């Protein structure tokens, strides 16, 4: 392409095109500046904990000095909790998803006891703290002769808790599937059960996946509460253990925070990727 035609092109560009390009440039500039600012904020945060001091004129800023040796020594011990955290989160979300689906179906049922069971469960769980629920399964049940391991108690409590909240997501998902879909399925002779399983739930799932991603991210963080049982060696438990023992809570908690943050960043990224794939899909 030579210079001439290029000029012609831009001359013939419509005003709408020019405005659009200007808008695009503005948006890009905004994103670039946000990105740079993030970098600066991160640098400031790192500097704050770098242990360096900075002198400007007569003022000297002393930044926080972290125990590098402690960090090096305990890095692998704390990171070792990552797998436990992930494991608990995955098991709990799986359990919660099943419960949420059942609760949502119960909520749509015409059968009074089933409807009642579903709403009773949701009300009870939403009306009590998650922290209490975890202790209930770990500390209170043994009194009745039911002893659950810390991990199991945590998974049961997190699963029950998130199941109650997620049932609302599934209920909305099922409600988002039009009446015409059900009727078309019934008209070809499908039973109500088949209609639910083959037609309604697959479409409801597609609707429910983005909010479920949010729940999963929230759960990876709430899994830290399970450390309170003292028997689940996930991220939080490990960092408080070494932090308390050596009075290096600052270092230990910062390390755990970084791990949680990185985990949620990855999950958030994965979620938006999945969401854009779904948006492009055959809707």
């Amino acid at each position, binding site marked *: 392409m030579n210079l001439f035609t290029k000029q012609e092109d831009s001359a013939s560009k419509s005003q709408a095109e020019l405005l659009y390009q200007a808008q695009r440039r503005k948006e890009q500039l905004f994103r670039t500046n946000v990105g740079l600012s993030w970098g600066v904020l991160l640098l400031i945060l790192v500097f704050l904990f770098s242990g360096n001091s900075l002198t400007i004129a007569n003022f000297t800023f002393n930044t926080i000095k972290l125990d590098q040796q402690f960090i090096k020594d305990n890095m692998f011990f704390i990171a070792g909790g990552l797998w436990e955290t992930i494991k608990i989160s995955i098991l709990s979300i799986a359990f919660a998803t099943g419960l949420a689906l059942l609760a949502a179906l119960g909520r749509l049922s015409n059968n009074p006891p089933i409807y009642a069971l579903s709403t009773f469960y949701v009300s009870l769980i939403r009306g009590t703290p998650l922290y209490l629920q975890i202790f209930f399964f770990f500390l209170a049940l043994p009194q009745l002769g039911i002893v659950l391991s810390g991990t199991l108690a945590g998974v049961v409590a997190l699963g029950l808790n998130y199941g109650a909240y997620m049932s609302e997501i599934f209920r909305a998902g099922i409600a988002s599937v039009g009446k*015409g879909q059900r009727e078309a399925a019934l*008209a070809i002779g499908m039973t109500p059960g088949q209609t639910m399983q083959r037609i309604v739930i697959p479409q409801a799932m597609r609707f429910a996946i983005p909010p479920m991603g949010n729940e999963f991210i929230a759960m990876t963080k709430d899994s830290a509460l399970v450390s309170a049982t003292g028997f689940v060696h996930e991220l939080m438990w490990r960092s408080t253990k070494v932090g308390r023992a050596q009075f290096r809570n600052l270092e230990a908690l910062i390390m755990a925070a970084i791990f949680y943050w990185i985990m949620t960043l990855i999950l958030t990224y994965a979620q938006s990727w999945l969401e854009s794939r779904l948006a492009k899909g055959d809707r």
Partner: protein
Amino acid sequence: MAPIVKVANLDKYFGRLHVLKKINLEVKPMEVVCIIGRSGSGKSTLLRCINFLEEPSAGTIEVDKLIVEAGGKGREHRQLVHDVRLKTGMVFQEFNLFPHMSVLENVTEGPVTVKKMDRSKANEIAEMNLDRVGMLFKKDEYPMRLSGGQKQRIAIARALAMEPKVMLFDEPTSALDPELIGEVLNVMKKVAQEGMTMLVVTHEMGFAREVADRVVVMAEGEIIEDNTPEEIFKSPKDPRTKALIDRYRSGGVE
């Protein structure tokens, strides 16, 4: 010939609203019956009572020797309703294709899930029916990528794949852009010529005139006229029929 569909003394209430009033209607095998009438006259409800998408309030529905009384309950009734649905295919105004399934899967869904047919046999039947409506070339597409006319032809294939005795059409072309109506009507005409028994709620008077054996006119929940298309269009007996036909003549479709 004995009727294949027989609606006797059918009443339907929605709450206090009396929507169908003692409807009696018989359709013989291979007959094509068009139902016309103003919007709100109860045409859809009548059609939907035949396959029990609406539960009739009173009366009897008979389809191919299966007799179902209104107000039945329990397993036996549910089984009868299920069997009636197997004998009837339905085509909706809004197509209602399953958006999460490919065109082929839409058509095999009934045979595989309901009739427990094995997949290869179901595919064979589905392809045959898609070919029948001229949509085989789109079998791997998803519904969202198709035009309204194409969707409706696939919906017809989906119903035909269950090999019903009677096809029910509820305003199959009312949601379509005018230029797409013809392709759907042509498919319906072809299905009629192949000998299918059809009950068609429609505003397409040309179709009624050309394809129907009988035209049934409804008003306020009653059948006010039931005759050959010639009689209905040339010498309507009821003034409401005349008004309805005049409206179509002047191009006003409600």
